[in-house]
Every structure is written in C-alpha cells, then in structure tokens.
C-alpha cells in the first residue's frame, strides 16, 4: 500500500493561502493587497469519512479544495493527502482522487457522454473490466443509461452533474472532492445524488469531502461538519455538536389540559409562546429535555409534548454572523446533546 495509509488520509497543519491582489488607487497607481483566503487551517480526515465543509461565500472553501487537489500551492503550513504533497505531486495524486466542481464540467461539451468516459478510461488507464463494472454501476444508480449517446451540451444541469460524478469515479478514487455538487439541482436530482454519495461512502468506503450551501446535504450525508469562516475553522464536529456550539436553543412544545398562564419557574427554560393550551419553552441545545418535562409534569396537567431541534440554517447563520468569535480550539470537542 501507499505511504501514509496507516495515518489519516488528509492532513492539514497550519495551512495558509494568501492571494496578492492589485487594486486601482488613483489613475495609474496600484496598491497591492493581501487576501488571507485560508488562515492557518489544521485538521485531519481519516479514510472512509464523509465530511461536510461549510462556510459563507468567500470563506475559503474552494481555495482549500484547490490546495487539497494540488492546483494551488499553499503559502504556508503543511499539507498531505495520502502521504503526498499535492502541489508537488499533482499528477501522481490526480490518479488517486476524484474531483467534481459544481459549476464546471470535465465532460467534452460537443461530444456524446460516452466519448468522455472513453477518454477517462485511457487517461487513468482503467482496466477494461473495472471500467465496465464502474460505468454500469454509476449509470444504473444515476439513471444515465439513456444519455450515454447524447452530446453533453444537450444535457440538463442535473444530468450533466450526474455525468460529471460518474466521470470522477470510474477510476475508483480513494477520495472524492465535491465543490457544491448539488448547486442548481431540483429536489429529485439532489436526492439521487445524495443517495449515490451515501452508497459510495458506506458500501465502497470512499472518503468524501464536500462543500455546500445546502444544509440538507450535510444533515443527510455527513456525520462530521467543518465550518470555516475568513479562512479559519470555527467549528469541527458532528451536527449535534454544531447545534450546541452555535448556542442554538431546542424547543419543548407542551400541550396542557387547558389554557393556563405561561409556565413559570422551570429552571433552564423560558416560555416563549402561548397559544391556547399549547405552550413553547426554549432551552439550551446542550441540555436534556427530561428534567424539564419532569418539572412541568409535577406542577401542570401535561397531556402531550414534543421536542424540536433548532433549525440548522439558523444555527449556521448565527455562526457566520459571529464571524468565528467563539473559535473552538483544535480538538476542543463540543458536547453532544443527549
């Protein structure tokens, strides 16, 4: 096996990327500015994980992916993928990774889809049997069968996206990078792509790193979420941890036997809404609902109850708005909610 197969597949240690941009300042004068697109990223991704990479526009997600695939050279820090330095070993690494960029295509625009796949076969020197099996599997799962003879320019966005996914996977990459793979897709296409990716990760053990602005992607696919803002990691953990870290609040909805004044005197919870016999109580995401329920049941005629998790969109918006003010230290595991 390759070097580094024992350790994590992806390792970043203080990785930075600084762009120098020239801006006009006056008629002829130009000033040079530094943009810290990625500012000291440290994380690891073990083999077989599926990681969601979140962040507001301009946070540095695509820049990170470009460094991971070796097409951008980091300005500082240490970066290893499968034991290789991506920028230095770009061509060697390229054989072992798959990349799908949501807004761009690797397919041959004016030629049938099948022609692009034939080229991929030659490019990665895929043995014919492997090629046939992978192509058959992908076309079946992604419903591409009838499209293989269609020129790529005649494909819809969702069809093209599925075509690109197939092209990125024919050579059995160890890791698949996806930059906004569901951008612009309808619900059905999104669901198809998600199911496909889940199968890829669980059945074939392919490591997947995906960026997205669609939090449903994360909820449905990723056990691990990394949130980046201004080039820095502001969160790294699971979804429950994200809820806690974002100071999100869970909501306890109780149905009482009759209309009563707002529930009062339950420690750790406050009543935020009353509508007839139904009342809403907010409590911190990190806390358990059980003691609250017990306290309420002891003093009120409780008929029914339910707990609502905080809306992930709101959580992430909150994290972004704080601009990483509450930056957890690396390895600082946020407590999972019970």
């Amino acid at each position: 096996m390759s070097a580094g197969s024992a350790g994590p597949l992806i390792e970043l240690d203080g990785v930075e990327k600084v762009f120098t941009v020239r801006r006009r300042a006056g008629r002829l004068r130009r000033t040079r500015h530094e943009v810290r697109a990625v500012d000291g990223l440290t994380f690891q991704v073990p083999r077989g994980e599926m990681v969601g990479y979140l962040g507001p526009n301009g946070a540095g997600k695509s820049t990170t992916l470009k460094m991971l695939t070796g097409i951008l050279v980091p300005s500082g820090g240490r970066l290893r993928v499968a034991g290789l330095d991506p920028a230095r070993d770009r061509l060697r690494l390229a054989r072992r990774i798959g990349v799908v960029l949501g807004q761009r295509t690797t397919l041959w625009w004016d030629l049938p889809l099948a022609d692009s796949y034939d080229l991929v076969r030659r490019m990665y020197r895929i043995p014919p049997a492997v090629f046939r099996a992978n192509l058959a599997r992908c076309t079946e799962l992604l419903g591409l069968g009838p499209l293989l003879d269609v020129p790529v320019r005649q494909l819809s966005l969702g069809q093209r996206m599925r075509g690109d996914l197939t092209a990125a996977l024919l050579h059995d990459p160890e890791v698949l990078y996806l930059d906004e793979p569901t951008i612009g897709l309808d619900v059905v296409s999104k669901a198809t792509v998600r199911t496909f990716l889940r199968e890829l990760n669980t059945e074939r053990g392919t490591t997947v790193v995906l960026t997205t602005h669609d939090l449903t992607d994360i909820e449905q696919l990723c056990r691990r979420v990394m949130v980046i803002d201004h080039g820095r990691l502001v969160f790294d953990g699971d979804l429950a941890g994200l809820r806690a870290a974002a100071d999100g609040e869970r909501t306890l909805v109780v149905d009482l036997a009759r209309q009563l004044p707002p529930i009062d005197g339950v420690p750790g919870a406050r009543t935020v809404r009353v509508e007839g016999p139904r009342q809403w109580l907010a409590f911190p995401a990190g806390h358990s609902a059980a003691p609250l329920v017990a306290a309420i049941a002891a003093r009120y005629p409780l008929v029914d109850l339910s707990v609502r998790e905080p809306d992930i969109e709101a959580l992430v918006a909150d994290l972004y708005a704080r601009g990483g003010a509450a930056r957890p230290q690396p390895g600082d595991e946020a407590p999972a909610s019970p």
Partner: protein
Amino acid sequence: MLYVAVAAGAFRRYATYRAATAAGLATNTVFGFLLAYAYLALWQQRPHLGGYGPAQALTFVWTGQALLAVALIAVGGVDELQERIRSGDIAVDLHRPADLQLWWLAADLGRAALQLIGRGIVPLAVGALAFPLALPADPATWGWFLLSALLGVVVSFALRYLVALSGFWLLDSSGLALISALAGMFFSGMVLPLRVFPGGLADLAQLLPWAALLQVPADVLTGARTGTGLLRGLLFQAAWAAALLALGRLVQAAATRKVVVHGG
C-alpha cells in the same frame, strides 16, 4: 494512447461544427480570389517578384488560404484554453493526470487535421481550377508539404500556447493574442510572401518563427524549396517547434507553481 484519443476527439468535435466550417470555407475561397487578382496585377507589373513566377505566386495565395484556418488563425484551438484560464475552468484540466501542453497540442492537431480537410482542400482545388497553379505532380513533394504544414501547425500551436498561458499572469490575454495574430498574418507571408519584403526585412522575417507557418510550407509546395533548401526549411521549422515547445513547458511549470487559478 491517450493523446491520440484526445486528437481524435478534437477532430470529431470540430467535425460537428458544420455551419462554421462551411462559412469559413466560403470566406477562404472569396479571399483567395481577391488576393489572387491583386497578386496577378502585381506580378504583371513586376514579374519574378521575390523570385516567384506568376503561377508560383498564385499557388502561394491559395496555399495561404488552405492553411489560414489550419495554422494561421487556427479558429478554435487554443483560444479555448485562453478562455478556460480566464474563467477558471482550467482547474478541471489541472485535475487530470495528463500533461497540459501535450493535451492541448493533441487537441490542436486534431482540430488542424479537420480544418485542413474541411477548409483547406476545397480552396486549393478551387484555386487550381480557376487559375494556372504551379502544383507539384510528384507525390513526394505533397508528402514533404504535409510534413512542413504539420511542423507549421506545431510552431503555431507553441506560439498560441505561450500567449494563452500569459493569462495566468495577465487578467486578460486577448490583447496579446490579437497582437500575436496580427504579427502572424504579416510575418508568415499571408499578406505578401516574405521574400518579396524589402532587403533586410525579408532576411529578418525569414528567421522569425512565423515564417514556419506559411512561408516554408508554401515554398515546399511551389517547388521554391527543393533538395538542401527543403531540408533546411524543415529543420528551421523543427528547431522553432522544439524551442517554443520547450519554452512553453518552462512557462507552464512556472504557471502551475506560483500561480492562481481564477474563480471560486
């Protein structure tokens, strides 16, 4: 082989642009007539201008039209690379386990082959029907011409590749591309054969790489270059091809080392 497949794919791809090929073909033919009548007038005034007889001069014109799309303007080809660098689509190309320069050279050769068939043969045939051309009867000369034209395409590619790569540093390389295309038109002999240029300029122009695009292949076809002259012409082309491709590799290495892929 991968790069053969790339060339074949480019060939098939350009074959799908039928309307563009037909329009280009018409343009080449019309231009050929205009230029041919201008040359006829010129050569009537000054027979043996630049050492060409009238038939050779006309052959030069129609060879130029045949190679215009193939090696001179090279419609499509590396323009697309330039656009990919500008838009950031180049990221996709760089993710492939393939050499960027070889990939685009292969694609450009596929394009050139299609355009030679689609836009080269007909103008030359029309020219031969309408005017007395000095075309060779000897198949070997046609073979040497094809080889010379191939080398011309490679030199042309290497130049355009360099211009396109400048897009990694310049925000917009289209100005440079335009200057380079104009220089190519003038110094390839497309406007006037280089031997017709006044004294020193003629000598200089025949040393520049653009001479490899049309002047040398046309001289091979018209029989102005035979024997050692032919050999020297081919070596001249091969030397420029090697030098410019090597320079392209250096620039490519610098570009992928230090530079920035545009776009998110």
